[in-house]
């Protein structure tokens, strides 16, 4: 696929069905004919999208891909510190948003121009021009450090799985949205739907889970992709089986056997698939046999456009949909194109399982947490002597972040435990908060100086 914009790609693939419904929002429905008539704007600029309304967000993507130079969509749910960090990673001209200017101080401080999302809708004949940009998409990822990184993609790599579909217009699929559409997994759903003439049912990430499930069931959603933690929540809602699901996809963290079994029981007719992918490596592998882990035969033979290998218990991946690189030019691939996923793998009989991260990063319900970063933050508390951070297995969120804490001498344990809890709530991002805090007598340090 050569330099073709999202709008033109939609037009090319769905041209005979422009009367189909593309997007169902909470208050608004868009047809494919609406999408292909959105004007292109902000030619040649480096643009941040910071849009809360999902329908307005999709319209902005269609308007800007192919006209702007760089497009960096950031979730409005992002932590303020992460946002400041992301803004420092690139040079940007404009922020497009549907929020009030008072919510956008952080962008003003960086001297970014403000463009209200409504302005993208206006057809401005004078500005119609033929400048074409092969827009670079900058996708935030939790990366392997304590702060997010920006990964460079092109539409071709983000949409590679969507573009593989043949006979894509023959089936009427309705996708329900549970991922944040500014993340890699979210783009997979979005493009799989929009480039194949399907419908995507969107709800605000601010809505309650029960409202989102209700919205999916009212709009007869047939396909949902979500993390195992989100699926457990969906099942706990008690109303999930009202959704007429034909396809269930799990990704973002390891799918364990109980959640696969529970989904099978609740949706006996649905195909259940779990996937392995990452923002950096792109789309990896998927399997629909209802068993946790992946077949080892995936390691031996090339699986379509994806190669896999295990070296020193680590998973390496080579994929045609992988990212171009990091925005800061940190090395992503080796000379043969292999990406070190940083995921630790265990092989048992004929399956391999993702069991953790080589750098100790803990996956808590799909969010990556760096224990060293948390340990250093906790050591800033005046009465903490030593800390050990670890992930405790959880049947609900996969992992829960836990901290063993050794207090300084002569402090009251009960008083300090409360003071530490307040400290954590005040100073830590939600995903970084240790939720289980154990006060222990001593944390042992090994002869190599490492914590035991």
């Amino acid at each position: 696929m050569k330099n073709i914009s999202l709008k033109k790609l939609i037009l090319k693939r769905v041209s005979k069905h422009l009367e189909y419904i593309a997007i169902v929002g909470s208050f608004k429905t868009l047809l494919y004919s609406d999408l292909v008539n959105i004007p292109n704007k902000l030619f040649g600029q480096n643009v941040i999208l910071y849009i809360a309304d999902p329908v307005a967000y999709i319209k902005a993507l269609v308007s800007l891909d192919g006209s702007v130079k760089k497009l960096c969509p950031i979730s409005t749910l992002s932590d303020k510190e992460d946002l400041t960090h992301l803004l420092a990673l690139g040079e940007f001209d404009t922020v497009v948003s549907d929020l009030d200017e008072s919510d956008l101080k952080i962008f003003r401080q960086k001297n970014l121009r403000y463009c209200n999302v409504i302005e993208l809708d206006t057809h401005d004949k004078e500005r119609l021009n033929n400048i074409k940009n092969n827009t670079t998409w900058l996708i935030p990822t939790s990366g392997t450090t304590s702060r997010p990184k920006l990964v460079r993609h092109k539409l071709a790599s983000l949409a590679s799985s969507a573009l593989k579909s043949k006979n894509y217009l023959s089936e009427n699929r309705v996708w329900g949205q549970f991922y944040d559409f500014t993340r890699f997994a979210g783009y997979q759903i979005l493009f799989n739907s929009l480039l194949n003439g399907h419908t995507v049912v969107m709800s605000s990430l601010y809505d309650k889970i029960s409202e989102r499930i209700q919205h999916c069931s009212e709009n007869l959603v047939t396909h949902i992709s979500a993390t195992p933690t989100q699926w457990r929540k969906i099942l706990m809602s008690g109303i999930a089986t009202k959704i007429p699901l034909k396809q269930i996809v799990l990704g973002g963290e390891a799918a364990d056997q109980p959640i696969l079994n529970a989904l099978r029981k609740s949706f006996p007719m649905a195909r259940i698939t779990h996937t392995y992918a990452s923002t950096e490596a792109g789309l990896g592998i998927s399997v629909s046999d209802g068993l946790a882990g992946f077949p080892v035969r995936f390691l031996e033979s090339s699986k379509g456009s994806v190669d896999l290998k295990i070296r020193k218990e680590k998973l390496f991946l080579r994929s045609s949909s992988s990212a171009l690189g990091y925005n800061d030019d940190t090395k992503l691939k080796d000379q043969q194109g292999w990406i070190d996923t940083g995921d630790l793998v265990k092989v048992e009989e004929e399956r391999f399982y993702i069991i953790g991260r080589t750098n100790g990063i803990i996956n808590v319900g799909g969010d990556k947490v760096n224990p060293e970063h948390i340990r250093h933050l906790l050591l800033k508390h005046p009465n903490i002597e030593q800390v050990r951070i670890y992930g405790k297995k959880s049947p609900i969120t996969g992992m829960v972040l836990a901290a063993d804490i050794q207090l300084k001498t002569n402090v009251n344990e009960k008083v300090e435990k409360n003071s530490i809890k307040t400290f954590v709530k005040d100073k830590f991002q939600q995903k970084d908060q240790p939720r289980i805090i154990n006060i222990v007598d001593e944390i042992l340090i090994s002869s190599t100086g490492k914590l035991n």
Partner: protein
Amino acid sequence: MTKTIREIITATFTEVFSDQVDGLSLPELSDKLILLESGLDSMGFAILVSELEERLGFDPFSISDEAFYPSNLGQFISFYEKHKP
């Protein structure tokens, strides 16, 4: 007198709720209470299950072969009662 599983669960729920939820009052802990509408999020439930494992000495989600995710408090308590070792 030893406390029943129900008493331990409701007491632990109350503690985890006051620890994790700001600005909401504790809902009535009836069997019909929809867990995800109680104010605790899924992380809150992960903490509740971990805390109950400490206090009761077992985690029914790990020891049960039954693939089950309870939606209301009554189902949650029954699941613990049924799988008590």
